[in-house]
């Protein structure tokens, strides 16, 4: 095993030396391919090479264009990419949730049809789940896909759909039987350019519009776009949410401790000042310590759970990472603006540094962390029921 890993390490090193444009070393990509970004120049080149190699999704099967690597090899690749200062710019819903779900539930033909473009970051997928009347009680969704033999006709609406404005395709859950709540839902994909699909951005308290409403009026969807069996989509939809929660444990979320950017320590130095190398404000120092320790514990747990999941498969215990992430990020953003003092409440204009404005908006945006992808309360219910085995949830 060690021998294999060492051989692979040399292979990864050599490939990165050949394929990773040195101009991008240590650079953050200007967006995410597969989630709205259209690259040019060296970023485009890097996206194409990484996607062609399949190493944007290292452990996915090679037969569909994935890397075909073992978890150990994937860990080595991550280390070598970090050493090379190479960041994977391909991501979004496709790689995080939809692809893994498709691998579990799709037909071979569906996998061949969708996976290669996900792996290369060519298609931007959005997720049609929540509806105005179906938030925490997601299975009460009403958007109806009427069975017309060789196709469905969809009417209804989705809400809180991230990135829908720029998305090429949607996967989602739709009602196909009005008489049966859980056994009347189907998992369906659709082209966002289909006639009858309309997207309206929702302006949030941060002033930004990352979410949208999506309206369907007599949208025609071919039967080939049904994933799994008709009326059996709830299980697939729920399974996908496991990947959503474990996605937080992945490369991005798993590295919150050393994520770069403007840190709480930076803000403390700039706004509060040190005495003899120690933050003078002892109360604030302790709260920063709390946040850093919690995020460190989060990283260690994400890593441990990924390693365990590689051996034992996904577990509902991963739901705690979603809860923890929301707590960590909200606490961090609140601390950040508190450290900035009255510089932390700027809205716009030259009176504030861009850094300061960005963090004010990030604090506001972070309030959604405990709502989106299952609210804290729903996640606590899930942990109580599925992990602890408590009744009544």
């Amino acid at each position, binding site marked *: 095993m060690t021998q294999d890993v060492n051989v692979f390490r040399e292979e990864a090193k050599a490939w990165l030396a050949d394929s990773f444009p040195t101009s991008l070393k240590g650079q953050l990509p200007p967006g995410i391919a597969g989630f709205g970004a259209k690259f040019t120049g060296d970023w485009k080149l890097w996206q194409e090479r990484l996607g062609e190699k399949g190493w944007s999704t290292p452990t996915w099967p090679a037969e569909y264009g994935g890397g075909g690597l073992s978890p150990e090899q994937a860990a080595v690749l991550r280390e070598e990419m970090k050493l090379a200062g190479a960041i994977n710019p391909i991501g979004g819903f496709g790689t995080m949730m939809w692809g893994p779900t498709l691998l579990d539930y799709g037909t071979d033909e569906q996998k061949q049809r969708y996976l290669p473009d996900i792996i290369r970051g060519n298609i931007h997928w959005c997720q049609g789940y929540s509806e105005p009347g179906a938030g925490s009680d997601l299975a009460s969704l009403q958007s109806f896909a009427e069975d017309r033999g060789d196709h469905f006709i969809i009417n209804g609406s989705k809400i809180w759909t991230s990135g829908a404005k720029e998305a090429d395709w949607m996967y989602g859950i739709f009602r196909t039987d009005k008489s049966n709540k859980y056994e009347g839902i189907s998992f369906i994909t659709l082209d966002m350019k289909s006639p009858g699909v309309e997207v309206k951005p929702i302006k949030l308290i941060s002033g930004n519009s990352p979410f949208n409403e999506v309206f369907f009026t007599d949208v025609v969807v071919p039967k080939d776009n049904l994933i799994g069996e008709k009326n059996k989509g709830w299980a697939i939809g729920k399974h996908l949410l496991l990947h959503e929660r474990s996605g937080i444990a992945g490369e991005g979320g798993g590295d919150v401790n050393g994520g770069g950017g403007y840190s709480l*320590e930076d803000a*403390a*130095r700039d706004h509060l000042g*040190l005495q003899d*190398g*120690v*933050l003078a404000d002892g109360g604030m*120092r*302790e709260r*920063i*310590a*709390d946040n*850093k*320790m*919690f995020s*460190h*514990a*989060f990283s*260690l*747990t994400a*890593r*441990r759970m990924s*390693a*365990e999941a590689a*051996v034992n498969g996904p577990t509902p*215990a991963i739901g*705690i990472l979603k*809860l*923890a992430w929301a707590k960590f990020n909200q606490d961090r953003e609140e601390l950040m603006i508190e450290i900035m003092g009255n510089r932390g409440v700027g809205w716009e204009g030259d009176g504030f540094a861009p850094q300061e404005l960005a963090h004010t908006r990030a604090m506001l945006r972070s309030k959604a962390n405990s709502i989106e992808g299952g609210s804290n*309360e729903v996640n*606590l*219910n899930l*942990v*109580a029921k599925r*992990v*602890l*085995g*408590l*009744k*009544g*949830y």
Partner: protein
Amino acid sequence: MAVLTEEQVILQDQAKSWVNDASSVTHFRAMRDAGHANGYAPDTWQAVCELGWAGILIPEEYGGSGMDFRTFGVVLEETGRGLTASPLLASGLVGASAILLGGTDAQKKQYLPSIADGSVIATLAVDESSQHDPSMIALAANAVGDGYELSGTKFFVVEGAAADVLVVAARTSGDAADVDGVTLFLVDTAANGVTRTPLSTVDSRGYADITFERVAVGADAVLGTVDNGRGLLEAVLDRGRAGLAAEMLGTGTEAFDRTLEYLKTRVQFDQVIGSFQSLGHRQATHFMNMEFARSCVEAALTAIDQDGEDVAQLCSLAKSQMGEFLHAMTNDMIQMHGGIGMTDEFDAGFFLKRARATEALFGNRAFHKKRYIGFSGI
């Protein structure tokens, strides 16, 4: 739990069944009721030694089994579940580590085989006030002839009542707060001038205050190098912190499991009380904090085994996060059990008492929080 090796699984099974059969909380209660002066039942310690656990860290050439901290942690977690009271941590982990890290060949030959077989109990004497503060070492070690004379007091020495040999952090030069000038000594508790005052504590274990009055030791009692003991002291303490955190993890996990069981069986208003969200959500939050604490403890033990650069930071993280979870869990263990939790007849109080003692030992949360953030440059 992290994926365990085959050896660790065998040891875990062995520890689980021994704790269950011979060292459960019921056995701890019997020890408390019998009132053993040393804070443990002699037959418990004898059984621990026969299982070979006092020699887990000690290399085979000195009579031990030469396993690592991660493996030791697996055993300590199980003894922590049963609230086992024995000198295993103080002697087999802390005392053994001091000699393994700082000892000469002669010292290793002299002490390690008898620590491994349990005939000698070793422990660390470090604190000099009500606080754990290894940055302040005042106990004097004055050079006299070829040796030294030790004078001063060490407080709250864990297993100090039973210990045969002490690793004493003493000052050979400079002032109490100086980084240099600290030296570790191996001192026989039977030596002239050593006075022990056993302490009666909530957790019923064997702590003692120990006074040294011109205790004469030879130059061969120096562990490590003279005036340069600070690094060794910290390394030994960090091993103790990680091992203690592993034991606390077992105690916290058992408190969690027992509370969860109660939530599933206690009926009020015609339903099990665990079906109330105010309790179920709290227990789910404890689960999260328990999993986080486990990750930190396992990472600290692994870092020690791999001699990582971040051992100190991870040990402070582990001791602090573990303390936080154990503190909250033992409080809620009593609260969720209601009135029965307050009775001496019920076991919940033992978990609370063990928790508070271990939270304080080798540095409480406030201590480790400050130490941790100190590594961040603010």
